[in-house]
């Protein structure tokens, strides 16, 4: 890294206002050749907004952008591509009806004699996918791929743009450890080729692993930039970064009480589902937090949905507190005392146009209505109670949930589940895309719920999190449980070995009460 | 070229007849259908009735289908007299005799229609007479097709001779009761000083009658055209403001067209291509002697 040379990209004095929200306030920032510059900050701090500005998506209200020293204006995503800025957005931006190859070519379709050249399109797609090490058939409709694989396609597209600056906005949110490692390799190789990379993540350990510099945002303002390669008195630790982000210390992120593991509440025996899932068998005890880990597409989400009744089972038996749990739909699931926090907040859980109150109360309306008429007072009391528990300010009650940050939105969904008072709570990626403050809140809540004696099953692709909050870990691969580990003693390496199938006999595995197979 | 059925050959027999009506939901055309069905029963020919639903292109398709079925005779009540010309030409080319009913059709071998201009004149004259040649009136027109337009034309001729009458508002309806009611309601609001209403047919006129009654107005005289059964009821009702209708005879018109058609098929074309049937004015006074449809 030569600090003397002109940065690849510089922004100066950028401000951006959305209606009444000041999303960015007088921000200056740069990216140098051959570095990974990480951006951190809570939900809504303005990270994505700045990245959308440097990739031509939004126009700044004030401020200037320079590429290799010369000022540019970027009126559209295309302009940014032309000057060599590529971006992988936080939200998936695939076109579900199209094939992988078509998605990769969108906006820049190869022509031959003025006509579409499909053969070249597919060949180029193969090339782009190979470059990121993704073995995906270019002719498959992208909508049929799991979110993680779609994310890999997006990465392939961005990397192939011949960009000098590449922005990755939470690229690993939908990836599990192995895919993430693959991506990190790629990032390192791009860095060594002299590209400048901007990396946004809520996962501290990733930032630690990759970043040369870290810049922290809070409430639209740049709090500071730290050189991660510095040593001596300049050296920064994770605590410093967290403090910059949230303005105070968070000592212990993960919460795991010495739970009173009670009676077995959930038993799952030889559960099978469509798409080659199962047979799966395991137990969850009251007051126990069981983590479920595995690679993308390992089948964790599917198992959760089968238990809840969101999908039809093809076989097996499930009992809750000794009663057969026979569910044909989520209504049955909820009645039987199962609560599910779905994997995708926006697509499967939130009603963005509805108020906070409605979002929280939606599943428990029957408890607060007589003859179909909602008893507003009783509903409000219940919702207020949960909002207190979640530490969401009650003046948010009537806000559209659209207006909340990702972390707060996730808490609304949790609140909905809390009102159901479930015997079994299944949380599918509960902290995906959630900032560190909200994360610690959510961990505290999970702990509290387990403390009330409920059985809790947590699916997570964030390994440190899974290890940190669970009592027991189920490792899934190819639709089956391949290992059951004691989360207190297991380490990331052993979990990954099980998850990928690269099992090493010497690894520390602790047999526990659960069964795997 | 059609090869099946009895059509096209000029064998003089009428075995298959196609009847095309512009809108069967109007009792006027339904009455044509009734009389033709009775005739088919009695005379033993096949009858295929199609509704144009006010769509020229649909009528084009219907003629094509009739050609396909080898009709001997098509009685055509066209949505538009000129717009149907090319389809008529195709039918004639296939050797099918086409006789226009109620609305003349370009290229048809013959036509039997009411003299709609005269109907407009009669009805309008009745209104002018009822008002004593003085007053303000509404004119409720219909869809932009020839029959309604001819009636308006006839009425305008009468009005030209009666400068004491002023048209204070004119709106176009859909030839039906609902639009007569809706338009008149609003026109009455805008114009307090009105004594008469001319509507191009009975359904609109009766809708206007309802509107006048609802508005609680009196002294508004209403006339229509058709002589429909509903109109007869209104004429017989002393409380109604509806006083006159230029009556046509749709059933008789269709039967007349059938006869003309049969003659042509038999090689005996009428002297005049167009047979004009005179309307007759039905009023409150003479309604008791009116036979009706």
């Amino acid at each position, binding site marked *: 890294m030569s600090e003397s040379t002109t940065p690849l990209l510089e922004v100066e004095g950028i401000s951006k206002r*959305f*209606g009444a929200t000041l999303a960015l306030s007088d921000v200056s920032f740069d990216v140098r050749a051959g570095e990974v510059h990480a951006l951190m900050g809570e939900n809504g701090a303005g990270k994505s907004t700045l990245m959308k500005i440097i990739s031509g998506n939004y126009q700044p209200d004030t401020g200037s952008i320079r590429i290799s020293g010369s000022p540019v204006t970027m009126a559209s995503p295309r302009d940014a591509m032309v000057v060599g800025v590529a971006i992988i957005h936080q939200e998936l931006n695939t076109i579900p009806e199209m094939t992988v190859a078509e998605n990769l070519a969108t906006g820049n379709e190869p022509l031959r004699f003025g006509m579409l050249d499909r053969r070249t399109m597919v060949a180029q797609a193969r090339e782009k996918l190979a470059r990121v090490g993704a073995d995906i058939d270019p002719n498959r409709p992208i909508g049929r791929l799991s979110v993680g694989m779609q994310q890999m396609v997006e990465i392939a597209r961005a990397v192939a743009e011949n960009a000098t600056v590449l922005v990755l906005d939470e690229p690993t949110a939908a990836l599990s450890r192995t895919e993430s490692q693959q991506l990190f390799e790629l990032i390192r190789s791009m860095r060594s080729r002299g590209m400048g990379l901007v990396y946004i993540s809520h996962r501290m350990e990733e930032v630690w692993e990759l970043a040369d510099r870290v810049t922290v945002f809070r409430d639209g303002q740049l709090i500071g930039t730290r050189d991660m390669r510095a040593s001596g008195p300049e050296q920064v630790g994770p605590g410093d970064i967290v403090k910059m982000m949230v303005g105070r210390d968070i000592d212990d992120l993960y919460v795991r009480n010495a739970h009173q593991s009670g009676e077995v509440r959930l038993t799952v025996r030889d559960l099978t589902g469509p798409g080659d899932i199962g047979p799966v068998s395991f137990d969850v005890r009251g007051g126990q937090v069981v983590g479920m880990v595995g690679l993308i597409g390992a089948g964790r989400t599917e198992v959760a949905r089968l238990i809840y009744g969101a999908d039809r089972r093809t076989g097996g038996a499930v009992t809750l507190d000794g009663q057969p749990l026979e569910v044909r739909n989520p209504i049955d699931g909820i009645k039987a005392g199962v609560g599910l926090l779905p994997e995708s907040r926006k697509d499967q859980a939130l009603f963005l146009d509805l108020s906070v109150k409605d979002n929280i109360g939606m599943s428990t309306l029957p408890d607060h*209505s007589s003859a179909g008429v909602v008893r507003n007072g009783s509903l409000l009391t219940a919702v207020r109670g949960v909002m207190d528990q979640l530490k969401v300010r009650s003046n*948010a009650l009537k806000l559209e949930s659209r207006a909340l940050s990702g972390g707060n939105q996730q808490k609304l969904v949790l609140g909905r589940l809390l009102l159901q008072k479930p015997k079994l709570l299944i949380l599918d990626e509960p902290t995906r895309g959630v900032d560190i403050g*909200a994360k610690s809140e959510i961990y505290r809540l999970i702990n509290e719920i387990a403390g009330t004696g409920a059985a809790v099953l947590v699916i997570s692709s964030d390994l440190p999190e899974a290890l940190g909050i669970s009592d027991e870990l189920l490792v899934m691969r190819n639709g089956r449980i391949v290992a059951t580990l004691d989360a207190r003693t297991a380490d990331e390496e052993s979990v990954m070995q099980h998850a990928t199938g690269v099992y090493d006999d010497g690894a520390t595995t602790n047999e526990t009460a659960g069964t795997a197979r | 070229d059609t090869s099946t059925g009895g059509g096209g050959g000029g064998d003089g027999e009428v075995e298959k007849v196609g009847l095309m009506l512009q809108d069967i939901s109007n009792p006027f055309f339904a009455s044509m259908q009734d009389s033709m069905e009775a005739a088919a029963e009695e005379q033993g020919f096949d009858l295929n009735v199609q509704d144009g639903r006010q769509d020229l292109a649909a009528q084009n398709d219907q003629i094509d289908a009739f050609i396909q079925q080898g009709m001997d005779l098509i009685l055509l009540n066209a949505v538009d007299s000129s717009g149907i010309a090319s389809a008529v030409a195709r039918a004639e080319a296939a050797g099918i005799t086409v006789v226009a009913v109620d609305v003349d059709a370009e290229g048809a071998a013959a036509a039997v229609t009411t003299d709609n201009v005269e109907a407009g004149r009669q009805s309008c004259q009745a209104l002018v007479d009822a008002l004593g040649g003085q007053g303000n009136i509404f004119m409720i027109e219909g869809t932009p097709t020839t029959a309604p337009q001819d009636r308006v034309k006839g009425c305008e001729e009468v009005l030209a001779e009666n400068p004491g009458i002023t048209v204070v508002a004119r709106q176009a309806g859909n030839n039906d009761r609902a639009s007569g009611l809706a338009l008149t*309601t609003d026109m009455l609001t*805008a114009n307090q000083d009105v004594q008469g209403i001319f509507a191009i047919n009975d359904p609109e006129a009766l809708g206007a009658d309802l509107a006048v009654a609802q508005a609680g107005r009196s002294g508004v005289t209403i006339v229509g055209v058709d002589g429909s059964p509903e109109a007869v009821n209104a004429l017989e009702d002393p409380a109604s403001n509806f006083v006159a209708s230029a009556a046509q005879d749709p059933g008789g018109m269709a039967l007349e067209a059938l006869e003309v058609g049969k003659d042509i098929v038999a090689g005996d074309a009428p002297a005049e291509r167009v047979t004009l049937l005179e309307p007759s004015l039905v009023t409150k006074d003479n309604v008791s002697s009116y036979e009706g449809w």
Partner: protein
Amino acid sequence: MNPITDTTPDNPLPDTKPEPAAVRRGSVIAHWWDRVGIFLVLLILIALMAALAPNFLSVDNAINVARSVSINAILAAGLTVVILTAGIDLSVGSILAVAGVGSVLLAVDGVPTPLALLGGILIGAVAGALNGAFVAWLALPAFIVTLGSMTYLRGLAYSLLDGQPLVASDLGFRGIGNGSVAGIPQPVVVMVVVYAIFWFLLERTRFGRHVYAVGGNMEAARLAGINVKRVLLSAYMLAGAAAGVAGLIFSARVLSAQPTAGQGYELDAIAAVVLGGTSLAGGRGRILGTLVGAVIIGVLSNGLILLDVPFFYQLIIKGVVIIIAIALDSLKRFSRAGT
């Protein structure tokens, strides 16, 4: 691992911070425009008409407008529920016809008036439920299902009457078309009752919440334990029942059974719903907005007739006003962008 420091109640976590005041303000403005935007459009229209059209601003004419609006407004009320579920119902005009025809036939056959009325509403509800069943259980696109039912129901209305209108001058329920209560036309009274019921259903009942949830995010609604199919079925059934009520009024107004009744009304009703601020994408909108939308259309038609504008210019003006109104209304999106 131990419980951590920051759980002290007096130290709320940072992500529980309230949205900045500025955000709240923006969303208040958006909220406000959301609710009154289209109302302003209506006021402008009324002011314009009052200035131009003779007798526009009279009590009689206000009553006329209300009466002539009632049918479209009632259709639109039912449609609002369907559109809130992200559906559409093109068949309401045809349902109006079948229900209107059915009720007149019942009345003419000597069925007591209240039963004939009930029969009409029931016919509408059944026709709507059929739509809903196709949409909910076979998951067919609502647009095409109701395009189909719009067609077959129209055919049914004709075939019930053998193709011809049936005049029934002494209809038992002629009052609900032409009568008045304390100077207010009965159709207007019925309209107010219908809106009261629909307002209550949407704003005060569980079903109402479910309608918004299903329209806002169907998958989330299903996972939240809502019986999505039943909600859809009910929505279409309600739209059908409302169309049935409209059919009764129509029949009573024209004192006859008309197979052509309500032809094309679905488009005016949809226009009323959308002008009233309900999103065709579902999940967003209010029933009272629909009423305002229907009144806009009614005022426009009335004013143009009062002005004695030839009907084809009326069409031009009406089309242009619809586009201008929706464009003005869409300003709210720009003010909402702030949140």
